[in-house]
């Protein structure tokens, strides 16, 4: 505790001293960050520049106004024996202090407008990616490429609840990051599936709300490969802080290789649907799927949260006929937080998680659910 307090104090001092020197601090002081990152796109740099211009204008005005005020507080105090003057109203002064700020505003409006035009320059992209916000994860779909996947938090509950030490990337790591190439104009088409979310990558200065029934657009183009972490910025329910955005920017060649790998994976996957899975295989896979996709609401032991998320233990749907159970996962429950998983999970994952739930926490159905059952259900709809 004491050590931490000392580090805190030292950090404070160094960061205050280094504030005017640089916007982006070294990795060492990163936790004492004071300023907005400059980012790696034209838009983020424009945002940073206008932010700095505004900050300096405000600083100058502040120094003048507060400086004058402190002088008055020092010089015109009664304890120094001054007598109060009795003047008031002076038209010239009053007109001046209306006109001058107005002029400053007009001058500021110019860079503010140019920066905004950049934000809105979403025409003619090289790549289109659809971003969909779900409670509490993101789905990325590469339009025209037949690639679509979910990106979910990877940090474990144990880390979050202090049962395990927190990793370096605590709450900033996902199952699968979004991957984009350098030097290509990527347009993000952003929407929401349930409530409103907001997709933010600070280093791109991309922040657009993910609104159900609506698309918002943003774009990024950068020449700097790397991993950029962002967040959901619109309150979207209990795990609002647990749906980070991670974007990996790869050199073009690496990106092409990644794309090819993804497509191969899809082909490989198709061949596993037809296979007969064993109980053990399904249980192992099901547990993994459950902890990522369902435990957030229905809790790790299936017990749910009274009044909000139903318990799955002994539930009439979970322990009822398989069709009903598959149905609720494929269609969701309209008007509730129970969303449709048809688009989010593969047939294999669905079969596994259903099988797992039917045979865990005291539920004990001795049937087996196969990926083919899911496929058949989908086709019969």
């Amino acid at each position, binding site marked *: 505790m004491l050590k*931490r307090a000392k580090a*805190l104090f030292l*950090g404070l001092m160094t960061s205050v001293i280094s504030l005017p020197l640089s916007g982006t601090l070294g990795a060492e002081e990163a*936790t*004492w*960050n004071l*300023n907005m990152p400059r980012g790696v796109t034209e838009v983020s740099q*424009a*945002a940073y520049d*206008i*932010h700095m211009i505004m900050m300096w204008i*405000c600083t100058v*005005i*502040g120094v003048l*106004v507060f400086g004058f*005020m402190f002088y*008055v*507080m020092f010089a*015109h*105090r*009664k304890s120094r024996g*001054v007598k*109060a*003057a009795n003047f*008031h*109203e002076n038209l010239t002064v009053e007109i001046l*202090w*209306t006109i001058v*700020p*107005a002029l400053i505003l007009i001058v500021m*409006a110019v860079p*503010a407008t140019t*920066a*905004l035009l950049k*934000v*809105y320059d979403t025409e003619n992209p090289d790549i289109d990616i659809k971003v969909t916000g779900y409670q509490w994860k993101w789905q990325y779909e590469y339009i025209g490429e037949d690639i679509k996947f979910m990106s979910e938090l990877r940090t474990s509950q144990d880390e*979050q609840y*202090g049962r395990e030490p927190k990793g370096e990337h605590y709450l900033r790591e996902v199952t699968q990051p979004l991957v984009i190439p350098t030097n290509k104009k990527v347009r993000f088409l952003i929407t929401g599936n*349930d*409530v*409103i979310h*907001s997709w*933010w990558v600070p280093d791109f*200065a991309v*922040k657009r*709300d993910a609104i159900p*029934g609506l698309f*918002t*657009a943003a774009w990024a183009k950068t020449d700097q490969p790397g991993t950029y972490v*962002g967040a959901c*910025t*619109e*309150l979207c*329910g*209990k795990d*609002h*802080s647990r749906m980070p955005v991670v974007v990996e920017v790869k050199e073009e060649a690496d990106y092409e290789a990644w794309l090819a790998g993804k497509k191969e994976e899809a082909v490989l996957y198709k061949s596993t649907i037809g296979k007969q899975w064993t109980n053990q295989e399904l249980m192992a896979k099901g547990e993994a799927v459950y902890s990522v996709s369902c435990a957030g609401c229905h809790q790790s032991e299936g017990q749910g949260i009274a*009044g*909000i998320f139903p318990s799955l233990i002994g539930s009439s749907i979970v322990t009822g006929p398989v069709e009903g159970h598959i149905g609720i996962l494929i269609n969701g429950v309209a008007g*509730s937080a129970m969303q449709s998983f048809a688009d989010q999970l593969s047939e294999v994952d669905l079969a596994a998680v259903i099988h797992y739930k039917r045979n865990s926490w005291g539920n004990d159905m001795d049937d087996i659910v196969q990926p083919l059952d899911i496929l058949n259900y989908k086709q019969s709809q």
Partner: protein
Amino acid sequence: MAHGPSQNFFSRWLFSTNHKDIGTLYLWFSFAMFLLGGAFAMIIRAELFQPGMQLIQPEFFNQMTTMHGLVMVFGAIMPAFVGLANWMIPMMIGAPDMALPRMNNLSFWILPFAFAILVATLFMEGGGPNFGWTFYAPLSTTYAPDTVNYFIFGVHIMGASSIMGSINIIATVMNMRAPGMTYMKMPLFVWTWVITAFLLVAVMPVLAGAVTMMLMDINFGTSFFDAAGGGDPVLFQHVFWFFGHPEVYIIILPAFGVVSQIIPTFSRKPLFGYSSMVYATASIAFLSFIVWAHHMFTVGMPIAGELYFMYATMLIAVPTGVKVFNWVTTMYKGALTFETPMLFSIAFVILFTFGGFTGMMLSIAAADTQYHDTYFVVAHFHYVMVAGAVFSGTAAVYYWLPKWCGKMYDETMGKLQFWIAFIAFNITFMPQHFLGLAGMPRRYSDYGLQFADWNMVSSIGAFMYGGAQLLFLFNVIRTIGWGKPIDDPKVWEGAEGLEWTLPTPAPFHTFSTPPIVK
């Protein structure tokens, strides 16, 4: 003729139609709400002291942020200023009471019920409102806990209370000014309150409309805000902020009024530009109606809309600047003393201006893309609402308390409270600017390790700030009970205005015959 207050405790306070007693009720109620909202804030800051979930669950965290916002805005700040208006407006314009005393009683007494309903939801199945004080649909409709219906009912009652309070203020000021008290002679506190009352009458029905549409969507199958049924979630935000932006000025305008009374008193010099202050207040009120979508720069408006709302928002800086320059020039060449009300007022000017600067930065849409919904915004509105409204409310209580109860508060304790509050406030909220710029979104129950240090600093500041409020409570109770009696009608050497011509303590009935104002 003039008779005193009823000797029976219940009939005095429950059935009161006396503006002073009702003012007192409002003030105590708002202070109770301030402590309750503060307790919620302490829970939030305790959870955010370190990364990881330590004390509460994320669902409860969201209920705490929501209830904190609702209780502070509707329960603490707004009723506090209505309380001050009740006490001071009749005394400032030479009226015997408010124009509609029975309605005055009603508008206060429905408030505790509204908040009882709201707070009770915390103990119901599914928990209290958890969708933020801005309650964006569909999180607050389709995805809300069932208790949202109680929330809607509570908001309706608060709205009715505010509308009645405002009508009363407008009626009083229009009809009950003493002979010779022309509009342009009214003290600024009265002016800012009349303008605020008009804002309230205009926008409270809009809020009522928003929650009614929610109610329909939830219970009667309409789809105002449900995209699946052809509705539009963004419509909700337009309606909400059409109420919400004027609302922030409803909160700050009376605070401007208070400070405009106090600074001249302790500068021993009249307000520099009385009429320009009145015009600036009116222009701010007008502008507040046409800038609402600056809270929605990220919803994907067409660029023309975005540019318009950006320019319009930037304009607000002009009348706001006029106010700040006026306060500073009033102090210039005065004979300043620094009693507790003056300290809080000076801190108000400095910190509010600081919040105005960050407001200017937020108005730049391209930069707001980065700031929006981060701790930077949280810092901004706490500089204007806490250092603005709460500091000026505290200043007002210290300034008028001796007049109200005829006893002097303890100056040393007042100053001590000021310095703790001032320092703690900045320790709490200054780092939140850095957190926001570094990328921490608001309404987060947990955060990455890179935000740990500033969050810890902020939490420490918050606990100190909370402590300072207990000192305030203690000082006020001590004054009322055991303060040094005074009987100088002026109380403060430099005080000007009708309220200071009355005896100290102010009798139960004042200005039964109107004074003549030259």
